[in-house]
């Protein structure tokens, strides 16, 4: 029986995603953070004064707020060594041929242009601090759909931008949201007009290339009444000895009757701190679904939230985390029931292996008056060896009596009986363990578009190769 050539997940990551371009960027400022650096970013982007002032205010907040003392170990981040803005090129292309060769090569290797041709309605590609490519199918543009990078949105749609920017995640929300607000660059801006359904996913791909880079994209999605959107994002980075930082902020506004599904396949290299604030506000009878796959990064802290503001709003979170060697996945969800008759579902699946640590950290909050609210949380952890660890931190703040809240958590290992059963059918130990893991995450994977499901299963397979048992 032919054995796969790949021995260790890191070896494969290096080959498939871990490559780097040595081209000099167009602009790279000094490392470290100061009002001057922030002003310089704003100046280079030719922003209006209000945005520059907002950035400076955010910097102040960032400096004042202490580092979080919970979650992952962030002591390895040295804010003075990070480059906060690296501009790879001075123009953004709508055609891949116009993207600088070395950058296009990167995205070709990652399969982005091909995916766009085959199954996407629009694509944005961010390389370090700037979006280098953006395109949307013409028929969607004609229906009034906006899909562009957030910097361009500030220039081209200032009223819309100013109406919503920072309304879901205020700049002082938390230390890393403040940092993002101070130095944000790139990200996706999406506007779906009333009643428009975007049936094919829009995708953004985030690539960190430069060493010690901080990537701070800012995404803002507005779904008007009765509209539908599925947005997908993916991310990878080269493997450097020095760590990088990714601190994004995502704001999603879902108007009555609209439905938004936001899917993330986070596959940063294991030297990236991923500290992301994602939040949605859902109005009457709307549906928000976060599908969050966390495979990469060194320390990941991410708890996408849904604020259920009006009756009938429904929030869902399908979370998947894989913590391998040296990784800490601290992930979860927040469901905040503000209005009566709102509902939420959280399903979290985590896998720890080779000394990795995964934690589910989540909050269900029911405000007084959220009568008839329903929330269910289910966390399943699979721990593959004795060196690995799994924890669950389910916080409940229930201030209304007439609500129905349920929480279930399981921690399991691969049973010897399962391995023997599968091996008696000819599967090797690794194949057997991989099949068990793929079954474990099936409830999340089956919600992904086919192409992503295949990719995710492949990534898990690479993670599983090598040391088992």
């Amino acid at each position, binding site marked *: 029986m032919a054995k796969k050539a790949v021995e260790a997940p890191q070896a494969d990551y290096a080959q498939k995603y871990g490559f780097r371009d040595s081209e000099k960027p167009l602009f790279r400022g000094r490392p470290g953070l100061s009002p001057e650096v922030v002003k310089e970013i704003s100046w280079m982007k030719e922003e209006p004064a209000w945005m520059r002032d907002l950035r400076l205010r955010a910097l102040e907040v960032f400096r004042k707020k202490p580092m979080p003392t919970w979650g992952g170990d962030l002591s390895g981040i040295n804010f003075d060594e990070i480059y906060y803005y690296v501009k790879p090129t001075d123009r953004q292309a709508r055609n891949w041929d116009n993207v600088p060769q070395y950058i296009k090569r990167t995205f070709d290797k990652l399969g982005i242009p091909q995916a766009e041709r085959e199954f996407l309605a629009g694509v944005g590609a961010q390389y370090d601090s700037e979006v280098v490519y953006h395109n949307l199918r013409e028929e969607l543009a004609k229906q009034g759909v906006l899909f562009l990078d957030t910097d361009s949105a500030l220039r081209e749609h200032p009223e819309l931008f100013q109406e919503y920017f920072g309304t879901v995640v205020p700049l002082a929300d938390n230390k890393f949201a403040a940092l993002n607000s101070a130095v944000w660059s790139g990200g996706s801006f999406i506007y779906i007009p009333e009643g428009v359904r975007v049936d094919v996913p829009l995708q953004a791909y985030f690539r960190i290339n430069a060493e010690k880079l901080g990537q701070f994209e800012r995404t803002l999605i507005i779904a008007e009444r009765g509209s539908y959107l599925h947005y997908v994002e993916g991310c990878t980075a080269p493997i450097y000895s020095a760590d990088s930082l990714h601190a994004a902020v995502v704001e999603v506004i879902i108007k009555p009757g609209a439905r938004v599904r936001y899917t993330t396949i986070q596959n940063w290299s294991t030297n990236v701190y991923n500290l992301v604030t994602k939040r949605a506000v859902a109005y009457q009878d709307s549906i928000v679904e976060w599908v969050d796959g966390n495979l990469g990064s060194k320390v990941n802290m991410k708890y996408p939230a849904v604020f259920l503001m009006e009756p009938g709003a429904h929030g869902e979170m399908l979370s998947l985390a894989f913590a391998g060697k040296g990784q800490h996945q601290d992930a979860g969800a927040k469901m905040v029931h503000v209005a009566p008759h709102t509902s939420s579902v959280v399903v979290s699946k985590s896998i720890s292996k080779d000394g990795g640590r995964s934690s589910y950290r989540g909050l269900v909050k029911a405000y007084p008056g959220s009568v008839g609210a329903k929330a269910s949380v289910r966390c399943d952890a699979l721990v593959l060896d004795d060196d690995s660890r799994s924890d669950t931190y389910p916080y409940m703040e229930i201030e209304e009596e007439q609500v129905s809240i349920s929480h279930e958590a399981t921690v399991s290992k691969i049973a010897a009986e399962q391995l*023997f059963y*599968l091996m008696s*059918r000819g599967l090797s130990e690794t194949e057997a363990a991989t099949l068990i893991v793929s079954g474990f995450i099936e409830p999340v994977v089956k919600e992904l578009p086919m192409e992503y499901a295949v990719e995710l299963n492949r990534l898990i397979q690479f993670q599983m190769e090598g040391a088992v048992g």
Partner: protein
Amino acid sequence: MPKSLFVIEDLHVSVEGKEILKGVNLTVERGEVHALMGPNGSGKSTLAHTLLGDPRFQLTQGRVLLKGEDVLSLPPDERARRGMFLAFQYPVEIPGVKVRHFLRMAVKASKGEEPSVTEFRKRLFEKMALLEMNRSFSERYVNEGFSGGEKKRNEILQLAMLEPEMAVLDEADSGLDIDALRAVANGINKLTGPTMGMLLITHYQRILNYIDPHFVHVLFDGRIVRSGGMELAQELEAKGYEWIAGEAVA
């Protein structure tokens, strides 16, 4: 003389220091169906699991030869690839893994062939029809929420798909109602043939109303104490295992 398909020689097996099998000897040739009967605790399941290499059981002595080669040092997957199969008495749940996906992986892993999706589907549905199984069954998760009868039928479906040379069936009949028993037994009958050897392990004689074994053996206290034909099974049914117990002591 050609080598025998399957030979068990003086097999001794312990579990947690306690000897369960105390010298089992048995030879199965191609085309033969051997029924192995025995009371609870006689070592039937230990034997079945040991033959496929379940790591819970410690082998202390003996050999198991498949086509002349000792397989006891091989891991379970290698034994499967060489043509062995075990239908489990208690099939294990694999949540989230669909029957058809599992079967496709098993066929690929044990037979080394990778049929096209269409070809595989065709073959799967043929075998399911043979076993009177609904096609939708292939979309369910392996053994999850299956009734006792469904679990056993799923084991026989795997037997049908994997086409082993030497099949060990561990209590394929236990816990089945009469209709399920008939369906499982009919399925087994359709699958046996001139090239396959089968060891049919059972507590009760009733499955032998449907399947006609060439040989019947009685396992008692870790040893095969009697061997014969169908008449032995009938005698057991009439007299009960007490009869054997009395003889063994004497």
